[in-house]
């Protein structure tokens, strides 16, 4: 007799009225393949856990974003936000699609150069640019976005020494009606700091003020806030034109568009509540088009969109280590990845799907990682089919910030695989080895030996 597929016995109280209210069925529909590649085979070949990036999804998402803006505005340029995901293969997909690079540190600047991005297509943001890094950026004609006055004066000095006119923009922070207001970066609009900084640059004439920049927040759910920001930057650009007869070449709206993830504690599923690229594009382009620019003097619109362009393309595959019953009766499932690998589980209720077929029975569970720490919770409450040891899961929409903010803690970080347009898998970052961590350690000679 052929034995049947086994599934752990489960029983769950039915709460009349709450049943199926949120139509959660799709949450645990099994996902057995990613772009034609079997989850099980990927894990066998590259080890568990494993990050998988869909090149197809990146290109489609970026094309969708480009379409939303370019059908509404004549001059649009995306710049890939390196901090969001700076694995080189990922960056290069964006560069192949025409994106410039947006970096916030010397390290990221070096990465962009290494990837072959021309210096004048690198936007250098952030409050901490070292003198040597600024020198290099000036040499390469990069777009330097000034964050504070100390930096402004340092660039002035470097420009005089180098006998070059650096291309600069200022970062402007402002009240866009959303809370919290990000006022620690750049110069404030409302209190006149921004206009003051502009005058300092224009009157001094050692630098070329080519742009105005703002980044009003991250995971923004209100397109109207971008409309306000675009109006204020346009107003500054028009004031510069009026006072100095100078055209500002570009307005950079930064990043911050929400992805389709669900913020922790949010009642609505992100996929239903996050605005589309079209909604953000409509708010931004309408504001610039209505600001009063002469048509052939419309500034280039730069976007540094990060998470909304890469979240969907990333998945984390993992394996069940064990099941437990907590003292209060809840099921606890322990996975082989924790908050060290999946940093964004601090922000999001990530969607998790089983990677094998199941019946329609489900149970409520807590998903834990393998770290010996209380904070290591992947989902505080999730409805899943009964998972058993060695079963696999797919965590969805993890492309942003995980492969840059992951922590090396008590184990080695996993490999990253990219599935190309023809559904072929390529390793784009090897699983770490002991040497990746210890390679830079130095043990003083007198500590090399001991007897136990």
């Amino acid at each position, binding site marked *: 007799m052929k*034995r*049947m597929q*086994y599934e752990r*016995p489960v*029983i*769950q*109280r039915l709460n009349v009225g709450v049943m199926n209210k949120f139509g959660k069925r799709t949450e645990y529909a099994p996902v057995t393949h990613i772009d034609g590649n079997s989850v099980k085979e990927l894990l066998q070949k590259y080890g568990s856990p494993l990050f998988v990036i869909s090149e197809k999804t990146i290109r489609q998402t970026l094309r969708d974003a480009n379409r939303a803006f370019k059908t509404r505005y004549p001059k649009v340029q995306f710049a890939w936000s390196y901090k969001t995901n700076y694995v080189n293969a990922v960056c290069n997909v964006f560069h192949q699609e025409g994106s410039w690079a947006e970096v916030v540190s010397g390290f990221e600047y070096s990465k962009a150069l290494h990837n072959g991005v021309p210096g004048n297509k690198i936007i250098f943001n952030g409050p901490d640019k070292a003198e040597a890094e600024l020198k290099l950026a000036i040499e390469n004609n990069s777009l330097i976005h000034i964050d504070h006055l100390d930096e402004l004066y340092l660039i002035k000095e470097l420009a005089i020494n180098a006998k070059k006119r650096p291309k600069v923009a200022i970062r402007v922070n402002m009240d866009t009606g959303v809370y919290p207001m990000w006022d620690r970066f750049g110069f404030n609009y409302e209190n006149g700091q921004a206009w003051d900084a502009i005058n300092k640059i224009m009157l001094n004439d050692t630098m070329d003020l080519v742009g105005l920049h703002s980044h009003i927040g991250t995971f923004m759910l209100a397109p109207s806030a971008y409309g306000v920001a675009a109006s204020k930057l346009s107003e500054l650009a028009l004031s510069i034109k009026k006072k100095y007869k100078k055209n500002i070449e570009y307005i950079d709206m930064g990043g911050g568009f929400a992805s389709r993830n669900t913020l922790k504690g949010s009642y609505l599923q992100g996929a239903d509540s996050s605005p589309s690229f079209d909604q953000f594009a409509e708010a931004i382009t309408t504001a610039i088009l209505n600001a009063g620019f002469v048509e052939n003097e419309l500034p280039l619109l730069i976007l540094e969109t990060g998470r909304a362009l890469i979240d969907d393309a990333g998945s984390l595959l993992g394996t069940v280590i064990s099941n437990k*019953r907590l003292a209060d*009766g809840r099921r606890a499932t322990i996975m082989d990845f924790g908050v060290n690998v999946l940093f964004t589980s601090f922000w999001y209720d990530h969607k998790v799907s089983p990677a094998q077929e199941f019946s329609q*029975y489900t149970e409520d569970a807590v998903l834990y990682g393998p770290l010996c720490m209380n904070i290591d919770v992947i989902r505080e409450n999730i409805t899943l089919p009964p998972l058993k040891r060695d079963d696999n899961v797919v965590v969805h929409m993890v492309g942003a910030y995980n492969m840059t903010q992951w922590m090396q803690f008590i184990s080695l970080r996993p490999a990253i695989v990219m599935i190309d347009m023809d559904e072929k898998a390529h390793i784009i970052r090897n699983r770490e080895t002991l040497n990746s961590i210890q390679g830079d350690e130095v043990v003083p000679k007198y500590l090399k030996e001991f007897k136990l």
Partner: protein
Amino acid sequence: MKIKRNIALSDSGFVFDPSSGDSFSTNPIGLEIIKMLKEGKATQEIKASIVKEYMIDEVSFEKDLYDFVEMLGKLKLTEDAEKKKD
């Protein structure tokens, strides 16, 4: 461990406890186990029957069975749970 004798089972996995008015949903294996418990079968018999029918080894199943029975107790579907309540 004894399951309450008066609970009602449907073939679709719907479980009803008339003494509390609570209803529950269980999967096919859960249903089979509850049926066997109702018939008064011993743990050993249940294990043998499931292992014969499904692709699972005895040690793994024993763990799941233990956990399932614990859950039945938590949901007050067992006689012992009933007694402890008094």
